[in-house]
């Protein structure tokens, strides 16, 4: 986590930037641009798939050919309304599209169709959770629909630029927050929560690397208790880590500027992650005059109650409700519940694992939930991180995970053996029972064999036995280790404990 304060502060305390003349508070608002999941673009029938050949997904409308007209894609409206409902927002029964006029080579019509004055979704709020368990509410001001632009490519030719219009006209939702965040961590948690909700309801895939989710970050600083300061907007930041870094750097810049007698001017800035700084793009004075006016090619968008009801009906369980259910019904800790509801695919994987685990062991989900959750968030997540893979391409399936947990539960595998088997599962993709069988990794629970092993370890270490009996209790662990080693790691640790205790009196 990036920090700009000179002193470490506990997470629950207000996040302050300590300048030479005293502390400053950060005020952050975010405009998140989320690409709508829909087969075709906002105003044309052209497909929206990522990564097509340049200019292969361009209709006459997208290329702004003479006489072409936009036709609103109802699916994009549906997705925006579903998103609004999921974020607890009001849905505007009447909204309108406007033209935002500016010239650029990748903006074919010379204007972007957006919603300026009357957005489709109005106010709402979401709750975020910080690392220390603190919860905060962040207000949503509005969500509007707008077109994405195309892409200018400047490095293919020494003197010419190329334009790829595949993205031109793709639907974006701009989700505008209130200036309610007070630290980089809060901004990070807000974007993570928002992303989790969008992915859960399927209105945006949340892929920040491909640019499906990106943010304009508004940052200002003020001395605690004072009115808002002048804000700067950092454009197009495309990872949660960069958002947090950009806020920290920008706040520090503003504090240093104010303390050295300067004034923050309202401007648009860019974040350079390599140099760890923001730099000015353009100031308010030379900002574009976008000459917004109502889009005359489109009538006002009217939404009726039935449409809203159908959108509401279509919403799956949201991450927050799922988290509360995991706590209440499955008895998971707030931490585990939070981790397992941060991403819809992970939640669904967990629920699959849990159902299989309960079925195999003939027990209630609640009874096996914690073990399953611990294994998934511990061993599995660590392995995925090591392999740099997401849950979607986990080498181990939920069924295989449940089988492994069942082998642990019935004593076939010890904890250490289970870890060994899991590593082989990751490599080979084989089922755990088959691995244990084929490689003889079953836990040894044969009392006779273990008694013999205990006896031979004690005989070989008579001096240590004497020390133990003289009161050096710590040596018990040494004996356990020696017996486990002698059994090739396959001995049941519980049985070894019992037998040793008995043998050592």
């Amino acid at each position: 986590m990036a920090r700009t304060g000179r002193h470490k502060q506990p997470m629950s305390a207000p996040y302050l930037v300590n300048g030479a003349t005293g502390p400053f508070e950060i005020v952050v608002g975010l405009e998140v641009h989320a690409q709508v999941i829909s087969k075709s673009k906002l105003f044309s029938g052209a497909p929206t798939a990522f990564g097509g050949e340049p200019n292969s997904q361009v209709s006459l409308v997208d290329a702004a050919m003479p006489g072409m007209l936009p036709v609103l894609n109802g699916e994009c409206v549906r997705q925006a309304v579903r998103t609004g409902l999921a974020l607890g927002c009001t849905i505007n029964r009447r909204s309108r599209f406007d033209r935002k006029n500016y010239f650029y080579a990748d903006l074919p019509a010379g204007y972007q169709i957006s919603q300026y004055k009357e957005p489709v979704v109005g106010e709402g709020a979401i709750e975020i959770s910080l690392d220390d368990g603190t919860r905060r509410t962040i207000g949503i001001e509005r969500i509007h629909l707008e077109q994405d632009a195309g892409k200018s490519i400047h490095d293919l030719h020494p003197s010419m630029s190329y334009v790829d219009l595949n993205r031109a006209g793709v639907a974006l939702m701009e989700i505008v927050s209130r200036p309610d965040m007070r630290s980089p961590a809060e901004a990070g948690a807000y974007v993570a929560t928002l992303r989790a909700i969008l992915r859960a309801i399927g209105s945006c895939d949340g892929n920040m690397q491909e640019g499906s989710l990106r943010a304009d970050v508004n940052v200002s600083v003020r001395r605690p208790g004072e009115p808002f300061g002048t804000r700067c907007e950092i454009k197009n930041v495309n990872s949660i880590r960069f958002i947090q870094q950009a806020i920290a750097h920008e706040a520090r810049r503003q504090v240093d500027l104010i303390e050295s007698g300067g004034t923050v001017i309202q401007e648009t800035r860019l974040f350079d992650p390599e140099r760890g700084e923001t730099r000015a793009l353009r100031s308010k004075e030379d900002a574009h005059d976008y000459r917004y006016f109502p889009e005359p090619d489109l009538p006002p968008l009217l939404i009726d109650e039935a449409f809203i009801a159908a959108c509401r009906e279509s919403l799956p369980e949201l991450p927050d409700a799922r988290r509360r259910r995991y706590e209440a019904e499955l008895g998971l800790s707030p931490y585990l519940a939070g981790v397992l509801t941060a991403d819809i695919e992970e939640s669904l994987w967990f629920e699959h694992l849990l159902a299989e685990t309960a079925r195999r062991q003939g027990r209630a989900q609640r009874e096996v939930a914690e073990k399953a959750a611990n294994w998934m968030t511990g061993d599995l997540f660590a392995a995925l991180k090591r392999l740099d893979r997401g849950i979607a391409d986990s080498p181990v399936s939920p069924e295989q995970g449940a089988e492994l947990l069942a082998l642990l539960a019935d004593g076939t595998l010890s904890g250490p053996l289970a870890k060994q088997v899991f590593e082989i599962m990751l490599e080979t993709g084989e089922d755990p029972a088959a691995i244990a069988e084929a490689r003889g990794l079953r836990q040894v629970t044969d009392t006779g064999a273990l008694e013999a092993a205990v006896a031979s370890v004690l005989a070989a270490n008579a001096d240590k036995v004497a020390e133990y009996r003289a009161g050096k209790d710590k040596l018990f662990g040494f004996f356990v280790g020696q017996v486990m080693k002698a059994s090739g790691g396959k001995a049941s640790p519980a049985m070894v404990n019992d037998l040793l205790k008995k043998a050592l009196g």
Partner: protein
Amino acid sequence: MSDLTGMSVAAMQAGLRSGAFSAAELVGAHVAAAEAARPLNLFITETFEAAMEAARAADQALAAGTAGPLAGIPIGIKDLFATRGVRTTAASRILDGFTPTYESHVTARLQAAGAISLGKLNLDEFAMGSSNETSAFGPVVSPIRAAGSDAALVPGGSSGGSSAAVAARVVAAATGTDTGGSIRQPAAFCGIAGIKPTYGRCSRWGIIAFASSLDQAGVLARSVTDCALLLEAMAGFDPRDSTSLDAPVPAWSAALTGDLRGRRVGIPREYRVDGMDAGLDRLWQQGAEWLRDAGAEIVEVSLPHTAQALPTYYIVAPAEASSNLARYDGVRYGLRVVPDGGSLADMYEATRAAGFGPEVRRRIMIGTYVLSAGYYDAYYLKAQKVRALIARDFAEAFARCDLLLTPTAPTGAFPLGARNADPIAMYLNDVFTVPSSLAGLPAMSVPAGTDSAGLPLGLQLIGRPLDEAGVLDAARAIEQRAPAPATPEPWWR
């Protein structure tokens, strides 16, 4: 064959079906007339060979009984409609070399009905003008001349190629577009009929946009019935235009009677403007008499915001135009001018400076200005409010009457070049046609008489939304009673 070129569309339909002449003969006669009329500068792009080929196909379809209602009818297309495989210019250099890969909805419907295009007709650049003098392809010369004069007159605009070609008997009818009077005023100047239907009746898909909230396609023809016949083929819902009206298209031509019994016609007192030609005022009263004779009751009504219509129009239309014309940037099609070592911004500037003529540039600048931060509220927003008041005026008037009768234009045609120096004087041509455009109402100009120089004058009928039938009936009633417009002497031959 010249008699074939003076016929009504209805007579052509009958002749083709009875076998009195073939489509090839009919189209051939019109191609010959078009070739002879080249001095009038009617066409930007001629498609005579394709027309002759289509005529032969029409003859086969007629023989086979598979012909559409307008099979073999020679028409012209205003060069604002995109036509697949045929250069489309909007009379502008900015579209240099542009040939669409698509056909506008309206022209596709005309094709499907069997109509045969002789080519793309001249117009004011991007339909901005009232005299057809802003065309990058040179002005159209009207086939009409004042009595005893050989001074060249304007055909009106922006559909000047359309009105002149119909009046000169080069085509039986032509498509036009009307944003503030661009069908009605040139129809009046050339002594023919022209209808602009309700906004949304004809799809704008494939029509090069001037002012989206005002643009509407329509017809120019030599009779009210011919207008109805063509409009029936052109109108209809199109899901590709979100402002298109999903309303059934009546069989207007079949329902046309000219019988106005039980109808009330309003005379808006605010249209009696200062300095109006006394002859025009008399003609207007005469028109009211004719309508009374057809059974209508005449009432005086008030449209209080009439005087604000022209300034309102000249804010709204340029505002939309400034945005609609932003796409002509040299990047994807049309003209591109790149100064040596120039940047993207330099390319935009050079391309647009070279591509747009003075009137288009003027309107882009006006439109950009009225939408700018700090001016938006005072101009664009206020204009939108006044536009709503103008629409309300009409709604209130239509509570008292079914139709409105007004002059179409304050004067008859004027000489080429006479009003070029003064844009405001030019804009005043639209004073009677702009209000109904702002309200999106169906409106039509019908020939009613002549001024003291013998130049044609038109009367305008305005109806309720979707009441093209009422407008056509009243226009028919005037047509039945007014002296038939003289056929222009073919001085250009």
